[in-house]
């Protein structure tokens, strides 16, 4: 197991390095010059040259990549062209919004989908099953940003329970900050919950039909116990796989949702950096997001091995 882990970690590092080269190349061939954007339309050529030199944009691409990787390895991602502060500081502030947002969304979607999916599967064709099917289809069909607008109309402008947007900051008190994340995470969670409900329902039904479950039931094991002891552990492998995939969608979806709710998160930062061609920030944000996705996939693999002894044996 340790050898396997080390091999997988080595693979992870190589993937990240390849991704970093790709990101760097793409960001630097994008049309647009950060210096020209910052200095506007009246700047003279020598002023632009002075700023490019100050930002290090006059050095060859390969050297810039090497310098970027070298300092990134020590945790220094450079200084934002536009904000003038270290990128790591900027990203840290934004992660304090986006990570809780994505995390709440994952938790919410699991809390909605797993009980609903299991319930639907255990009483197939019943009222709950029919509701689960309608819920899953509707929530998959509705894009998150649209759900967001509906939630705002209902919960903030209508009933005034939650704020319509903005983020007071964690220093303004946990409760106020949490309140402003409720609607955005719900908007993110609902479409994901739909997918997850269907996957859970199908996985539970699949396993319930297996011979070993029938045998367990035939031996006199009550339905509930069979479900908890035999069905759920086996059904959890596809559920965890889909959850891992969904995390990627959640991070991407957060970009849109943060704009709808005016949240100063990573998505907003990425968008702003892109329009200003703040390459240093863009590189770091995209790298972080890709890193997050790669690491989450890695963790999902590990979790599956934990859940399924056969996978462990294969490895």
């Amino acid at each position, binding site marked *: 197991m340790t050898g396997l882990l080390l091999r997988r970690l080595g693979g992870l590092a190589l993937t990240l390095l390849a991704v970093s080269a790709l990101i760097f190349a793409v960001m630097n061939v994008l049309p647009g010059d950060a210096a020209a954007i910052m*200095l506007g339309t009246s700047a003279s050529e020598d002023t632009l040259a*002075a700023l490019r030199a100050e930002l290090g944009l006059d050095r060859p691409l390969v050297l810039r990549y090497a310098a970027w990787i070298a300092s990134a390895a020590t945790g220094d991602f450079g200084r934002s062209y536009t904000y003038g502060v270290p990128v790591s500081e900027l990203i840290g502030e934004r992660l304090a919004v986006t990570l809780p947002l994505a995390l709440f969304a994952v938790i919410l979607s699991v809390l909605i989908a797993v009980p609903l999916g299991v319930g639907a599967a255990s009483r197939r064709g019943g009222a709950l099953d029919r509701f689960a099917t309608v819920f899953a289809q509707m929530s998959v069909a509705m894009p998150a940003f649209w759900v967001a607008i509906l939630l705002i109309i209902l919960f903030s402008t209508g009933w005034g329970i939650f704020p319509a947007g903005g983020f007071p900051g964690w220093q303004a008190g946990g409760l106020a900050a949490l309140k402003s994340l409720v609607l955005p995470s719900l908007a993110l969670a609902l479409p994901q919950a739909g997918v997850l409900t269907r996957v859970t329902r199908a996985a539970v039904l699949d396993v319930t039909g297996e011979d070993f479950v029938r045998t367990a039931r035939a031996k006199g094991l009550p339905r509930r116990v069979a479900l908890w002891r035999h069905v759920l552990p086996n059904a959890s492998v596809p559920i965890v796989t889909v959850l891992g995939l969904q995390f990627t969608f959640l991070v991407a979806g957060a970009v849109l949702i943060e704009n709808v709710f005016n949240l100063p998160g990573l998505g*907003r930062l990425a968008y702003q950096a892109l329009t200003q061609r703040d390459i240093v920030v863009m590189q770091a944000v995209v790298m972080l997001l890709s890193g997050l996705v790669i690491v989450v996939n890695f963790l999902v693999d590990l979790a599956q091995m934990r859940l399924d002894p056969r996978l462990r044996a294969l490895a």
Partner: protein
Amino acid sequence: MRILAGLARGAVFSAMLAVSAALTASPSMADPRRDLVLGMGIEPTGLDPTIAAPVAIGQVTWQNVFEGLVTIGRDGKVQPQLAESWEISPDGLTYTFRLRHGVKFHDGEAFDADVAKASIERARGAQSTNPQKRFFDAIASIDAPDAATLVLHLSRPAGSLLYWLGWPSSVIVSPKTADANKTDPVGTGPFLFSRWVKGDRVELKRNPDYWDKAANIRLDTVTFRFIPDPQAQSAALVSGDVDAFPEFGAPELMSSFTENERLTTEIGNTELKVVAGMNNARKPFSDKRVREALMHALDRATIIDGAWSALGTPIGSHYTPNDRAYKDLTGIYPYDPDKAKALLKEAGYENGLSFTIKVPQMSYATRTAEIMQVMFAEVGVTLSIEPTEFPAKWVQDVFTSRDYDMTIVAHAEPMDIDIYARDPYYFNYRNPAFDAVMAKVEATTDTAGQDRLYAEAQEILARDVPALFLFVMPKLGVHDRKLHGLWKDEPIPSNVLSEVYWAE
């Protein structure tokens, strides 16, 4: 989507009415408020107007945190500030400023002639990244003979120098703190920088040691909040989260505030000239008859109705009603499709003409381009619209490479009619007669003489149409009725707060 937005708006309003009713129902007998939350659509990129061009930087810091030797007033005219008076030698080559005593920077550092000299040297030096470094081109050397006297020696007369010294990019910074101003601005103004929550807000507080004892600063704290989405701007205003939006983002939502008891709207002028620039070096735009025909093909009033909810002022030249010696020249080539067709025929395009317009994603630009497309079609001109990401791709394609037929953009810089005399500039326009007038403006130091020249310059452009002059964007102010002192017009992009106060 439109229906949905309408629904959302309706719901927002009923909720807001309830909220405002609740607010007005409990009248406070306390003193007027001394805090202000002011909304802006764009977050500044850094807080130092002397190293980057975005107008949002000046809209937070200019006159609030930073001040200049001179300033520009509500009427667009130059006023003394850190310099209490000045003298210009008869040959226009020596500017002698008398500086104020007792001015201190926010860090306690004293302002004097040496500081002023260092500040201007920084802006014009070899390492300078000042976006308007050209302002200081004419300065040959700077002297500080005593603490209260600053002398600028010019190599040639520079008639606009005094006006330029009032700009955000010319503010006086202390050499000790200059390098950190981008994140921690230190100036001489009535407000101190206190905090910047990036992506959300900048907070300022009153400067207790402000030098101008005659100034009656009636705000203790000011929060600039950055809300890009117009629907969110509207929600923030109606809910009272934001007290004022001096440049509200969506003209089509302005009428929604008229019913609101707590808010009021005020429509003024900006310096944002929306013009459809043409590549004058390229066929067919090198033919003046074609440019004239295209101008005749456009009905400015309809464009303003369709693109900007009938808010905005038509212009006939690259000049706004805010600017000194403004002339309404929209009558030179009025809307006349028949004349347009005749001119196109004369130029050899009786069988039609087609070209591409590179359009930034901003709503004023896309909407205007779509209306232009229809109007051009009426005179046999086929316009293809090519969306072009602003600023990055637009700057690269249009501004730097000048690889375009036509484009459309709002020019934000005040009094920038001289761009048509710059070479290179994206219009690729060359007119020695116009260049001569612009040169004369710089060689003239008396105001009346300059005004005559500006009038002449406007007229040359209006007749030669190097760009299609469309309209000036309105300043859409929305604010609490009890709030007073904000500028109605914007002769220079700014949010000057020194005269803002709450009535009881």
